[in-house]
């Protein structure tokens, strides 16, 4: 008799454990779904394909940065420079993508193939990231300080390079941020919509980053360093080189974000991306990346970014004041970290 009861209890306990584990692991997804349904009920405009695509397009720039920042945070670092690096990459790339006959052209008579500004944006970003990594790994400067320095320096260089917007960009360049592919999404009373290219870029980068983190040696080494740097070193990992690699990738993605943003708005501006690094960190943290290192996923970060996107969009649709929006966003970040801390106890 007693045996039966305890067996039943055991099954029940096992089920409960499984449920607990499931809820813990996918809590963030459940929250996202709940928010999504909430907005759907509260606002008629929310669930239109146009609005949904808008949300994703709005987060695509910040999402790129957040993917790099996630990797950095997994190593127990942080990157505060991404917003500024974005701006520097944007002005430099834009200046190489201007129409030759534009009235305010930075390099008169220069007409380069579109690949040049693209590579320039990536290169500028990667170079800034490499410097961050070298400061952190080589000079053992705390990541917070090293990237804070880069945040100011890169912004200064962006302003030095051009103190006014670099506009009059070629159509091919602008296509990167404004174009659409696969025009099959039906919209009532209008021609079908396509997938905005920024969304495609974000998706490709996210999948690539996910595979890198989970299926390559480099990716597992990133987690190992965050899990226990000393143990990783004793296990034969070249911790310095790996860290430099991670910061370089984060910089490269900030450069890519600068490319996407400048082409979407059709101009490179030195004031772009202010505060993006904080939204990116927020997305990573809401998505379950642990600031103590070793824990974090790309899909979590993307869901985190989507939560921020849905929140911004939904609160706009509901006419909530911008002041309240920042208060709500800030509170959600703090709550996410509290949940994360308890999970890791």
């Amino acid at each position, binding site marked *: 008799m007693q045996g039966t009861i305890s067996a039943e209890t055991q099954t029940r306990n096992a089920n409960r454990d499984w449920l607990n584990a499931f809820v813990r692991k996918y809590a963030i997804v459940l929250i996202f779904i709940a928010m999504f349904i909430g907005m759907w009920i509260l606002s008629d405009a929310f669930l239109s394909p146009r609005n949904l695509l808008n949300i994703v397009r709005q987060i695509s720039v910040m999402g790129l940065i957040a993917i790099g920042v996630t990797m950095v945070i997994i190593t127990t670092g942080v990157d505060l420079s991404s917003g500024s690096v974005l701006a520097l990459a944007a002005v430099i790339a834009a200046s190489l993508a201007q129409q030759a006959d534009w009235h305010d052209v930075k390099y008169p008579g220069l007409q380069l193939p579109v690949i040049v500004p693209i590579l320039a944006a990536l290169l500028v970003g990667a170079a800034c990231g490499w410097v961050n990594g070298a400061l952190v790994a080589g000079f053992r400067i705390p990541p917070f300080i090293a990237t804070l320095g880069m945040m100011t320096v890169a912004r200064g260089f962006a302003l030095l390079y051009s103190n006014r917007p670099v506009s009059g960009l070629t159509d091919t360049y602008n296509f990167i941020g404004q174009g659409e592919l696969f025009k099959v999404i039906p919209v009532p009373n209008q021609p079908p919509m396509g997938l905005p290219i920024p969304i495609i870029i974000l998706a490709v980068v996210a999948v690539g980053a996910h595979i890198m983190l989970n299926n390559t*040696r480099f990716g597992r080494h990133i987690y190992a360093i965050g899990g226990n740097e000393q143990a990783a070193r*004793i296990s034969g990992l070249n911790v310095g080189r790996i860290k430099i690699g991670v910061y370089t990738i984060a910089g490269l993605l900030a450069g890519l974000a600068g490319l996407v943003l400048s082409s979407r708005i059709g101009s490179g501006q030195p004031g772009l991306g202010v505060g993006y690094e904080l939204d990116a960190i927020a997305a990573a943290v809401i998505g379950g990346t642990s600031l103590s290192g070793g824990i974090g996923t790309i899909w979590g970060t993307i869901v985190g970014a989507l939560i921020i996107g849905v929140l911004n969009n939904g609160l706009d649709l509901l006419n909530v004041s911008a002041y309240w929006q920042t208060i709500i966003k800030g509170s959600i970040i703090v709550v996410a970290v509290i949940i994360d801390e308890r999970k890791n106890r």
Partner: protein
Amino acid sequence: MNNDAILVMEHISKAFPGVQALDDVGLTVRRGTVHALMGENGAGKSTLMKVLIGMYQKDSGTITFQGQQVQIPDTETALKLGISMIHQELSPVPYMTVAENIFLGREPLGRFGFIDKRKLYADTKALLDRLEIHIDPSAVMKDLSVANTQMVEIAKAISYDASLIIMDEPTSAITEREVAHLFRMIRSLQAQGVAIIYITHKMDEVFQIADDVTVFRDGKHIATLPASETNKNHLIAMMVGRELTNIFPKEEAAIGAVVLSVRNLTRKGIIHDVSFDLRRGEILGLAGLMGSGRTQVIEGIFGIESIDAGEISVNGNRVQIKSPADAIKHGMALLTEDRKLTGIMGVLPVRDNMMIASLQSYVSHGLLDKRRIEETCHREKGRLEIKTPHMNQTIRLLSGGNQQKVLVSRWLLTQPDILILDEPTRGIDVGAKAEIHRLMCKLAQEGKAILMISSELPEILGMSDRVLVMHEGRVGGEFIRQEATQETIMRAATGNTQLVA
């Protein structure tokens, strides 16, 4: 005799997960005497003292201090009662001054509740002058030498005007001149009726300064007797005289050519001229007391810390080892002493913890071959009998023994020739311990060379083909299995090699 007892501790027990640190022990200290507390590493001395000053809570037993039965829930209470302690590990606040360190938490306050700096420095100066310690009260702690830092700690402990001062290896960091100075201070404290509990490994000091001696072993009280009624050999015998209760499955392995050869390894001020050979199939035990430089030797060999001088050869070829990666390349593996600090990656799954050092063998077309990794994990899980529900389990949630097996497996997967095991069975349960010992024998039979550090003499004696004993950063003795006994090792470890039994 009991009426002049300042402290009576009776029937004290304290257990940690997997270890009975104190088992029904007692300690009686007389007013105005120096009471030496002796025993091997892990005998329970420090644990008992931490119970006394409220850092640990006893599971059972009573403490009577100055004739009153007392409860000591925290160190503040202990200080109020008049018990202060000089800790073995110094913990100064590095960027504060000597005076601020000494009066930390009880700074003299002046008007409006501000700190009365003038009185702070005057009091400190008076204290240091009285103790004849010549250190500037306004010096910043981090600028002091280790010896002076130790003297400040001593002054601080005395400044509480405690009636009982615990000194845990107070001379480990200071020179002979300062030891003499410390002993003068102790005698003058004694004259004022202060009692001292003096923990040390150094036999000579015991007979110089102690009135009574208590010996602990394996968490048990062995004996208390006047220092005048004992001698060094008697004390050593009492400290180590335990029967070999653990059965060690040591099996003979064919001992082959020299694999690792270390010559004159030196890290300035830490280890000096350490030389030894390690052969294929051999288990070489590295013994020594805490702080004797055992771990520092292997840190130097494995490239964790840089060495100042010395040569390392692997299979007869001189090698340069600048990082753990170099050491691994030359076929070495290191299971570190502190599993949590330098071993496991706590938040990561068992799989990552197991595979991290050997991932390069599982890459095909730039990607990790997940299926082969999974196969390897399951094979290792079976081979080492690792108890984990699945490979995704966070390693922190496993028991110490299972964590250790995962780490052993991490290193075996690198297919090393030389296994360096630093305290391989510390803090794990008896069953897992025996499994690790059996595994070591098997590995030796497979021709691997094993260097094992252990603080447990029975483990050293039970497992080693040869024993190297460290003493104050040097090789203090070397014994083949047949010569090695608890007494000979303990003598070499305490620097008493010249003694005749």
